[in-house]
C-alpha cells in the first residue's frame, strides 16, 4: 500500500485540532484552538457589513431613513388612530413589547419579534412569509388585528402630512382625489368593495405609495443593530491572548459558554455573529394555549412565493437574478411543518417571554424545554434530550445573560419625540 505522507500529516494535524490536543492555556480559561475559533465565530465583530437590499432602491437614502422613522412612530397609520409600528416594537425594549402575543387594534396569534439586524435575514416573521424588510413592514399595516387600516387610507395620510418629504425621495405623489378614504385588498368587506371598484391604474397608484411607505420604514429599520455585549468583550480578550477576557465573564458564565458550544448543542442553530442561522426548525415547542394549529414555515415558505410584494414582484427594485433566495427555496419538505424562525440570542435575557407565541415565560423554561425535548404537537421535533444537570442549566442561563448589549438605532428626531409626548 502506498502511503501518502502529506495526507497523514494533514490528518494528524486535523485530528489534534479537533480533539483539542493543541490546548491553549492563554488566560485563565482553558480552550483548545478549535474552541477559540468556534467562540470567535460568535463575536459581533465577525458580522458582515450591512448587506445591500436590491429590492429597495432607497434602502440607504438618509432622507428615507428620516421619513421611515416618522412613519414608524405615526399612529395615523392605523384604523383607530392609536397603533403605530412602535406600539409593539418599543425602542426602549429592544423593539419588542414583552408580551406573549402582540396586540394592535386586535389580538394576534404571534409574539412580536425584535427588529435589530433583520437586514441580515433573508426571510422575516416567525414563518418567513416575507423576504424583505419593506414587504414585512407592509404586512401588519393591512392586518385586521394589527394596524387594521388600508393602503388607500395610508396613501391619504402621506398626501396630507408627508407630501414634500415623500416627493423629494420618491417623486410626484399620484393624484388621490378620486380615491376613497379607505380601500384595500383586506378582509373588511366595505374596504375590499371600494378597492374592487377602482381601476387598475388607480389601484397601482395607491399600491405604489403603500410600497414606498414600506421602503421608507425599512430604510429606518435597516439601521437598527445590536451593540456589543459582555460576551463580545470576552472574545476580544481571548483573541488578543492578553488574558483580559477573565474580567468580562464570571467562571459560571464561562462554564455556560462551554456548554453552549458543546454538550448543549446550541450552536447547531444559534451560530454566527447574530447567534442564529436564520433558518426555520421544529423544536417541539408546545402549541400556544387557545390558538389554532400553526403550520409555521410550511405555510410561510409557500406564502412568500405568492406574496404580492416579494423580490420578484413588480414592486421590488431587484432583477430576477437577485432573487436567489426564492429561486432555491424549499417549500415541500416535511421538516417545514411547524418549523419556526431561529431568533437571534443577542439581548435574549431582555425579551421574555419566548417562542413564537410567547409560550415560555422565562429563560429557565426555555432551557428546561430543550433539556426535556418533548414531542412536537405536530410535525417532527429535531431536538434530542440534553440531559443537563440543574447546575449546568444555571450555567447556561448565566451565559445567555452575557449576550445583552442593547441596540443602536438612528437618533430620535425631535418631531417624533414631540409626537410621542402628545399622545
Amino acid at each position, binding site marked *: 500500500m502506498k502511503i501518502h505522507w502529506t495526507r497523514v500529516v494533514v490528518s494528524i494535524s486535523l*485530528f489534534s485540532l479537533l480533539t483539542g490536543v493543541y490546548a491553549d492555556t492563554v488566560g485563565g480559561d482553558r480552550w483548545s484552538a478549535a474552541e477559540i475559533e468556534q467562540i470567535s465565530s460568535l463575536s459581533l465583530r465577525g458580522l458582515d457589513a450591512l448587506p445591500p437590499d436590491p429590492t429597495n432602491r432607497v434602502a440607504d437614502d438618509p432622507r428615507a431613513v428620516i421619513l421611515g422613522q416618522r412613519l414608524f412612530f405615526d399612529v395615523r397609520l392605523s384604523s383607530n388612530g392609536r397603533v403605530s409600528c412602535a406600539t409593539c416594537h418599543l425602542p426602549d425594549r429592544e423593539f419588542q413589547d414583552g408580551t406573549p402575543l402582540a396586540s394592535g387594534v386586535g389580538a394576534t396569534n404571534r409574539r412580536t419579534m425584535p427588529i435589530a439586524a433583520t437586514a441580515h435575514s433573508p426571510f422575516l416573521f416567525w414563518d418567513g412569509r416575507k423576504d424583505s424588510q419593506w414587504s414585512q413592514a407592509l404586512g401588519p399595516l393591512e392586518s385586521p388585528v394589527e394596524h387594521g387600516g388600508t393602503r388607500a387610507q395610508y396613501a391619504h395620510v402621506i398626501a396630507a402630512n408627508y407630501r414634500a418629504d415623500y416627493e423629494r425621495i420618491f417623486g410626484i405623489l399620484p393624484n388621490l382625489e378620486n380615491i376613497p378614504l379607505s380601500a384595500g385588498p383586506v378582509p373588511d368587506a366595505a374596504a375590499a368593495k371600494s378597492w374592487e371598484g377602482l381601476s387598475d391604474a388607480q389601484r397601482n397608484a395607491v399600491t405604489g405609495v403603500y410600497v414606498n411607505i414600506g421602503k421608507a420604514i425599512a430604510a429606518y429599520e435597516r439601521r437598527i443593530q445590536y451593540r456589543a455585549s459582555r460576551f463580545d468583550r470576552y472574545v476580544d480578550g481571548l483573541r488578543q491572548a492578553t488574558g483580559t477576557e477573565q474580567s468580562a465573564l464570571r467562571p459560571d458564565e464561562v462554564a455556560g459558554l462551554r456548554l453552549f458550544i458543546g454538550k448543549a448543542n446550541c450552536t*447547531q442553530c444559534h451560530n454566527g455573529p447574530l447567534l442564529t442561522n*436564520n433558518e426555520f426548525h421544529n423544536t417541539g415547542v408546545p402549541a400556544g394555549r387557545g390558538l389554532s394549529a400553526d403550520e409555521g414555515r410550511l405555510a410561510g415558505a409557500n406564502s412568500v412565493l405568492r406574496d404580492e410584494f416579494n423580490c420578484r414582484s413588480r414592486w421590488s427594485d431587484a432583477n430576477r437574478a437577485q432573487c436567489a433566495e426564492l*429561486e432555491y*427555496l*424549499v417549500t415541500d419538505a416535511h421538516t417545514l411543518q411547524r418549523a419556526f424562525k431561529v431568533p437571534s440570542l443577542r439581548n435574549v435575557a431582555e425579551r421574555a417571554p419566548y417562542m413564537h407565541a410567547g409560550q415560555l415565560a422565562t429563560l429557565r423554561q426555555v432551557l428546561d424545554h430543550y433539556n426535556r425535548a418533548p414531542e412536537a404537537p405536530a410535525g417532527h421535533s*429535531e431536538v434530542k434530550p440534553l440531559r443537563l444537570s440543574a447546575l449546568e442549566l444555571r450555567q447556561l442561563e448565566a451565559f445567555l445573560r452575557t449576550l445583552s448589549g442593547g441596540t443602536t438605532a438612528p437618533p430620535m428626531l425631535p418631531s417624533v419625540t414631540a409626537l410621542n409626548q402628545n399622545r
Partner: protein
Amino acid sequence: MKASQYYTAACLAALVFSVAGCATRPAAGEFGVGPRTSAERRYVATLQPQQVLRPRQLQSMRVSIVDARGQAVNDANILVDGGMPQHGHGLPTKPRVTKSLGGGLYEIEGVRFNMGGWWEFKLAINGVAGADTVTFNLDL
C-alpha cells in the same frame, strides 16, 4: 406473517434506521471535496467551491465530472441533494445545476449550509456512462 405485516415491519425498520442520531459520522478520510468516486464507480467527481464554504451564505460551487477512464463527462443530467444525517433534515435550499461549462465542469447554484457539522452533499449523475450517485461528506 402476512405480506402486509412484512410491509409494516419493513416500514418500521426503515423508520427506525432513518431517525436522526442513528447515522454514524464517517472517518476523517471520507471528508472533503474529492476527487470522489461514485457508488458504482462510473464517475469521479470533484467539487470546486467558488468561495470558501461558509455557513449561512447562499453560495455557488462547481463540480468537475470525469468517467472511469478520466474523460470529461459533458451533457450529464445532475440532481443535487443532501442533508445532515445526524439531524434528520435535508439541505435548507434546493440547489441545482444551472450551467454546463464544458470540459466536464458544471455550475451548481443555491447551496447553503445552515449549521456547523457533518453534511452530506449528494449528486445523482445521469450521463454517458449511465446513472450513478456520488456522496461528499463536508465538515462546516
